[in-house]
């Protein structure tokens, strides 16, 4: 437990010492701020037009800030996470393998699980900071409208689970190679495949289509963004995370028996 905490703290600090955290968080916030502005501006223009022109108003059953700002914004955030989180996780093992520091780390009296979970938690810490810093956007929504709080809370919960899943895959990819670019490409590629898997459901038979949809990230997030916390979605993300961490353990362990 103590080793886990030490490694977590070290990784968390390293992100700030090496300025990775600042760059990733800043770019993430710039992107999300820009997209939030666009969504919000579109919504306010529409509301304004609906107020002055009854023909426009007729096109919408209701102009809901939750439906038209909060929900699409969660969708946007998930895409930025998809791009940014592999950049965050790519160094976590690869850098140590390349520089050889892994040799010292793994000859300290530390369990593999403590190393993996510590590093994982370090990334998770940065990601949590990222998410917290997007809160001002929702504060603005609260100032100018009356969104449903439940949706915001469940949306954040969904994003957090999704990001954790992204990180678990990224950390695993990083443990496979000493090349950071390879780690980033592998994790980004696989995340994108999981992200979009549901798209091809329409062309497949019903059974396979269902499987693809259930394996995909997107449908599981959309429930959260609607304000629905379904155990199915929670279990999906948790299983994904546990599976990646399990693979990670095996990949680190393989060094001990591989010739």
């Amino acid at each position, binding site marked *: 437990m103590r080793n886990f905490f030490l490694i977590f703290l070290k990784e968390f600090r390293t992100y700030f010492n*090496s300025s990775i955290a600042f760059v990733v968080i800043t770019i993430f916030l710039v992107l999300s701020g820009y997209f939030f502005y666009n969504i919000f501006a579109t919504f306010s223009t529409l509301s304004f037009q609906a107020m002055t022109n009854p023909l426009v108003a007729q096109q919408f059953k209701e102009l809901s800030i939750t439906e038209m700002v909060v929900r699409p914004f969660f969708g946007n955030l998930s895409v930025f996470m998809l791009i940014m989180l592999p950049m965050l996780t790519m160094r976590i093992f690869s850098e140590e393998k390349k520089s*050889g520091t892994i040799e*010292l780390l793994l000859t300290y*009296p530390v369990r593999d699980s403590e190393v993996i979970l510590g590093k994982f938690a370090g990334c998770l810490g940065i990601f949590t900071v990222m998410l917290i810093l997007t809160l001002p956007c929702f504060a603005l929504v609260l100032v100018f409208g009356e969104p449903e709080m439940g949706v915001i809370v469940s949306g954040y919960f969904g994003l957090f689970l999704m990001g954790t899943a992204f990180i678990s895959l990224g950390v695993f990819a990083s443990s496979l190679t000493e090349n950071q670019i390879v780690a980033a490409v592998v994790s980004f590629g696989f995340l994108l495949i999981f992200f979009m898997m549901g798209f091809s459901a329409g062309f497949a038979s019903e059974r396979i289509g269902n499987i693809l949809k259930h394996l995909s990230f997107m449908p599981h997030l959309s429930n959260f963004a609607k304000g629905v916390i379904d155990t199915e979605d929670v279990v999906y993300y948790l299983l994904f995370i546990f599976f990646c961490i399990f693979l990670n353990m095996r990949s680190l362990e393989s060094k*001990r*028996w591989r010739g």
Partner: protein
Amino acid sequence: MIEVENLTKKYGSARGIDDVTFTVEKGEVLGFLGPNGAGKTTTMRILTCFIPATSGKARVAGYDVFEDALDVRKRIGYLPESVPLYTDMLVPVYLEFVAGLKGVDRRDIKNRVAKIMDDCGLNAVSKKYIGELSKGYRQRTGLAQALINDPEVLILDEPTIGLDPKQIIDIRGLIKNLGGRRTVILSTHILPEVSMTCQRVIIINEGRLVAVDTPQNLTYQLQRSQQILIRVKGPEKEIISELSKINGVSRITAKENGVNGINAYLVELKKDMDVGNDIPPVIVRKNWSLYEMRPVGMSLEDIFIKLVTEERIH
């Protein structure tokens, strides 16, 4: 303290080390000698539980490196050859991190780090990031992290490589002081280092153990005959014929012609004969001048080359 039995490590079909057996007693400083690629690092990595052996057993402080890896790792300090450190950490912060991982008591960490930084001469760089350090300071930081938990066994892979002469002397001094209290395994391909710091030497070549002994014994055993070098001023032929008459001298050869007619001669002696007292009187009687007379010991370099090229086992 360290027992290695028939240790073999294969990398695919390539051989890392082959059937290596040796033991190290508590408090001993053992030198691990061999050319590049001989298997020194492989052996050390197995002892530190970083990689597994293909076959054979290794025990450190009574714990098997494969079965009880955590117990072994608690008791060792390890400095890999490349001195891999986290470049983006401050020196004391890094040492505190390592101390924590190595199980130093939370309340002791600050004191321990302060003491080790003192011992390793790191106080000058206490506000620097490891990435900014010179090679010498990096090496010391590496040594400090190995020593931070006061380990029973210290495994150092080429600890003086790439240092300037002053730093080499410092580090050697530090290592020498560690002996007695701790068991040290030290790998190197710099031979004088071994004779200076180690009580026992293992010579390894192409993954095989070639010799295990004290530096002195190795020197002694490998010398087929003792040699004395003398520098004398006088007529060459006469000197050779006169000195050859001395009982115990097996052969005498002119080595080189020096300035002012002072020539060097190599006197080879029969085994276990001491003629040190017999040579000067002859020279004095003949009215030649004796400028130098010294025994020629076989240096570790000679032994090393001899063993590595001939693969003779003693």
